[in-house]
């Protein structure tokens, strides 16, 4: 790599787009969490909406919760990160700031906001991670095409030069998602029943595995060296991890339908891929954690702290995923709250901690952005506590439900047994909601340029403009 260092002095980052997407991410996050907590309260007080509340009924809130988290919160946070990272990784600007404004408008005002309203008004599709109605899907696909136009040319214009690991995840993730999204959102409308479910299963996993995971990993691989000022532990492990992940993740989909009518060989293939994926994640996480050595479990730089905890959550959730894909485990915990706990560990633990870490990291580097380190410190501890309690609670709830389903007890017994766990789950809204509010406050109050000061405080170094060298160690 020494033969092709990025040009000295990275091109300017479009900080206004970083800021706009960052703010949109935090606002859509709070709204999505609101949908989630309302839905969770309705499991405790089912008549909360008074029976007249079509717009606030459980099913519609549930649809908006996950779509808002994936597209609103994570989508915007990823875009904010890309506007910062792509110029630094490639030494080239993104395609067009004007295009960026259009994409921002499209994503938030043609996808997320109208998607939410349409779902509440009763226009949706009953497919997991694809609940926004078809008309919205058209705009998502358009936005994904524009994202490729915006972010990938800087990578490709570098020709045959090799790229840092974050770049691979960005390229792979964006290309894959553009292809996978229509497959999950359109194909089951055209191919019925069990055959459509096979495609649906693929998308359920691709949404997490090939959209959220690669971009979250791009953040982890970016923030860790940038914040510690040390190259990643092993570029070889990074490469091994990347290729195995992109090979194995797409083959996981059918594990959402184990013991279904889908051919057993496809199920067994997916279970095998799920098992191997756990092994691969151990490689990836080992590489990341070894890169973090010396920083401590709770680094002083709060961006790094979020990111390093996100890495640990990634390890736990992936191993859990490998375990629950095994037939012996899956047959009892499938359909239960265990899985709800698993998805919160993935989206709220791994993905949201990575996205929050990435957002804080890029915020620190916007000279005019306000930054309140105390609030961000609170945010970290509140969220960490909330996630751990919530996921443990739902996991135990799932085991309790699974046990009752194995007996001849009436079905309603499992609903009764879940009630205390659901109450605790709802109560975890207090730390989690407060954690996200303090995250928003932390990034909108405090001194302008406070982030730069915080870096100097925590790392003890002047923030260097040119940090690209940490991304370009020879293999």
């Amino acid at each position, binding site marked *: 790599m020494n033969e092709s260092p990025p040009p000295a002095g990275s091109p300017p980052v479009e900080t206004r787009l970083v800021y706009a997407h960052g703010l949109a991410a935090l606002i859509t996050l709070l709204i999505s969490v609101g949908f989630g907590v309302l839905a969770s309260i*309705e499991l405790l007080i*089912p008549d909360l909406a008074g*029976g*007249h*509340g079509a717009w606030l009924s*459980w*099913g519609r809130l549930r*649809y908006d919760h996950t779509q808002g988290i994936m597209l609103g919160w994570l989508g915007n946070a990823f875009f904010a990160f890309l506007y910062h990272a792509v110029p630094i990784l490639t030494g080239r600007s993104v395609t067009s700031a004007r295009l960026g404004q259009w994409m921002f408008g499209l994503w938030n005002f043609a996808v997320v906001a109208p998607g939410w309203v349409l779902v509440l008004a009763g226009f949706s*599709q*009953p*497919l*997991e991670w694809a609940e926004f109605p078809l008309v919205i899907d058209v705009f998502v696909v358009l936005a994904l095409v524009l994202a490729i136009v915006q972010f990938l040319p800087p990578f*490709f214009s570098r020709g045959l*030069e*090799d790229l840092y690991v974050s770049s*691979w995840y960005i*390229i*792979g993730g*964006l*290309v*894959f998602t553009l*292809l996978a999204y229509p*497959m999950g959102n359109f*194909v089951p*409308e055209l*191919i*019925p*029943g*069990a*055959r*459509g479910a*096979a*495609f*649906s*299963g*693929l998308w359920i996993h*691709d949404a997490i595995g090939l959209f959220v995971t690669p971009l979250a990993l791009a953040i982890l691989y970016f923030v860790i060296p940038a914040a510690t000022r040390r190259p990643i532990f092993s570029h070889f492990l990074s490469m091994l991890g990347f290729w195995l992940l*992109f*090979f194995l993740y797409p*083959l996981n*989909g059918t594990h959402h339908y*184990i*013991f*279904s*009518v*889908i*051919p*057993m060989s*496809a199920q067994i*293939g997916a279970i095998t891929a799920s098992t191997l994926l756990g092994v691969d994640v151990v490689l990836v996480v080992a590489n990341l954690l070894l890169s973090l050595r010396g920083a401590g479990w709770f680094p002083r730089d709060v961006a790094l702290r979020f990111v390093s905890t996100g890495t640990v959550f990634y390890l736990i959730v992936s191993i859990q995923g490998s375990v629950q894909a095994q037939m012996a485990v899956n*047959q009892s915990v499938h359909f*239960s709250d265990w899985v709800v706990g698993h998805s919160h560990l993935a989206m709220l633990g791994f993905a949201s901690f990575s996205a929050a870490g990435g957002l804080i990291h890029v915020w620190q580097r916007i000279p005019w952005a306000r930054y309140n380190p105390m609030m961000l410190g609170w945010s970290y501890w509140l969220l960490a506590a909330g996630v751990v309690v919530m996921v443990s609670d739902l996991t135990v709830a799932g085991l309790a439900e699974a046990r009752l*389903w*194995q007996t*001849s007890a*009436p*079905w*309603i017994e499992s*609903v009764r047994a879940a009630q205390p766990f659901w109450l605790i789950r709802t109560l975890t809204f207090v730390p989690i909601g407060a954690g996200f509010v303090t995250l928003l406050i932390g990034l909108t109050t405090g001194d302008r340029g406070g982030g730069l000061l915080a870096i100097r405080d925590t790392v003890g170094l002047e923030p260097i403009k040119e940090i690209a060298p940490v991304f370009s160690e020879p*293999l």
Partner: protein
Amino acid sequence: MKRLLRMSYLVGGVAGLGFFAMSVLLLGVWPGRVLEQQIRGTSPDHPLALTASEKRGRTVYAREGCAYCHTQQIRYLPGDVARFGAATLAWETIFDYPHLWGTRRIGPDLSREGSVRSADWQLSHLYAPRALVADSVMPAFSWLFDGAPDRPRQDAQDLLAYLETLGRDRALAGPEGEARARAACNCSDDEKRFGFGSPVLNASPSMARRQGDYPKLSSSGDLTRGQQLYSRDCGGCHGISGQGNGPGAAGLHPRPENLSEHEYTLDRLASSLWNGSVGTAMPAWRDLPVQDLSALAQIVRGFHAAQPEPTLPQDVLALGSRVYAAHCAQCHGENGAGDGSAAGQFPIAPTNFRTQRPSLAASLRALRNGVEGTPMAPWTSQLSEAELSAAAYFVRGFFQGAN
């Protein structure tokens, strides 16, 4: 090689495009072809497609997120088959654009729901779930109604129509269809065992059936437990003191029985609890242990306050007997056992007076007003007041005694 693997073109082309194509082929297209073949071999020749109303109902089901708490997929596992019935075959979902399999079960699987509950139960339950199932967490879909459970709007009617299709095609395929599908199914022994080997297509413990064995209940039972079960599982319809006036009763036709106006034999209660009551909203309770059912029977029998029986002049009984033979026996049977020659034609079985004795007032009321929601019509235009009273007295004589 190492350098090659880090190139943007290779990353975009192989990881992004290539692995996507591979996964779609391996886990989408190929299983789809196997399933298509399976469907061709196992499907009945003419499965019933959804009507326009049923299709609209399916849209309501989809938009309200029903599939996020209720699966429509019975897995190939002993636990699933025991609880819900034969595992779901590929052809059962061929009209589902998109599929509604679901991945979470807060409520039970609904693959075979169509034949489990009566229409009035379904509507009342959609309108106010907790009036019928005390601990349910289902949202109340009252906005699909015009202010009462028996006044469904179009959406609720369509949703009901859709719910009634669940499991219909498989049931219509019948034993011949099952046998043919089993022979044609290119599937493993395990798949055959769970897909076809279930003793019943629909294993729901709530599904009412016209007849069937029922357990012998004990005439003693834990009254505290019984009271607790009654107020939780029965009070919603039958009312806390058994008068048939619970909050769930309003939308049910026929109305839930007023338990305090009847004496029952223990077997009669066992049969009702175990088999439900076909044609009415009374579900079966086969998922409750026998000692719980015994305790419930104790509570139900306790609602009836014993009163001194008047002795009647012979001529009144003779008149009652003549009226009964002329007008009632066709349905209720010569001996009052509810087994008259016409009984089989009705969706609701006529009352068996040998196992259940109405109070005089209840008996008269039924004769005068008929029983709404059942084939029992008012008799005032055909019988004189004396004849009505005599028949009301007479039918009470069939009762075989409480034990």
